[in-house]
């Protein structure tokens, strides 16, 4: 029996962006409010899983033409690179630095290298979750 998924697919397209924006918000708010890389990554992969439920795996793979295993490596590179970058400035491993900048749109903003570490966590969480789910979903 052919099912007609038009309601679910339309709503999934709208809700996907709401979840993605909330995930990005959680990721950037992580320094001062609850949130951070882990929750943001989980929520992002949750949004992609919603698309996987509404559409089939081939369509989603066409929408996100990345091998999620590469995201794990990229995230680990970011985290380890941020930690090792402190060694260049002759301070202990994992020393973070921050400063205040005048950005054109945001005004006075504090930029922190812990952010880059968090970006690594974010990418690793997306990569691991999506790899697990796609691997299980593909096995016959």
């Amino acid at each position, binding site marked *: *029996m052919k*099912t007609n998924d038009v*309601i*679910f697919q339309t*709503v999934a397209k*709208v*809700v996907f962006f*709401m979840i993605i924006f*909330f995930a990005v*918000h959680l990721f950037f708010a992580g320094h001062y409010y609850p949130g951070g890389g882990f929750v943001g990554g989980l929520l992002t992969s949750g949004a992609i899983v919603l698309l996987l439920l509404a559409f089939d795996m081939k369509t989603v793979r066409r929408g996100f033409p990345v091998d999620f295993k590469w995201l794990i490596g990229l995230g680990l590179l970011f985290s380890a690179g941020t930690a090792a970058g402190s060694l260049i400035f002759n301070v202990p491993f994992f020393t973070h630095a921050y400063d205040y900048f005048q950005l054109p749109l945001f005004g006075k903003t504090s930029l922190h290298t812990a952010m880059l570490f968090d970006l690594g966590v974010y990418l690793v969480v997306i990569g691991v979750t999506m790899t697990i789910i796609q691997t299980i979903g593909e096995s016959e």
Partner: protein
Amino acid sequence: MTAISEVLIAALLLIGALLSVIAAFGVIRLPDVYTRNHAASKSATLGVMCILLATFFYFLVEDGLFSSRLLLGIAFFFITAPVAGHLISRAAYNSGVKMWDQSVRDDLKDKNR
């Protein structure tokens, strides 16, 4: 916190809780999966939205905090809960769950099988 906002917030909270209780009673009392789903998805949605709106107003009046994620939560729930109800009902119908024996109308009977 003024008396008007206190009354408004309390009324919204009570209406939301009452609607949730009515949804729970509907799930217990109604005869088949479709009517139960009807009760649960409709009045629980409105109940949760009332409670979230009361929370939003409380923090707006008490702390002056404009919590946009509560508004986003209301919109999100308003979009997703009926669709979830629709999908559950359709899954039940497609897997052959019987209607209540006193229901009179089944428009999908000769379309889907």
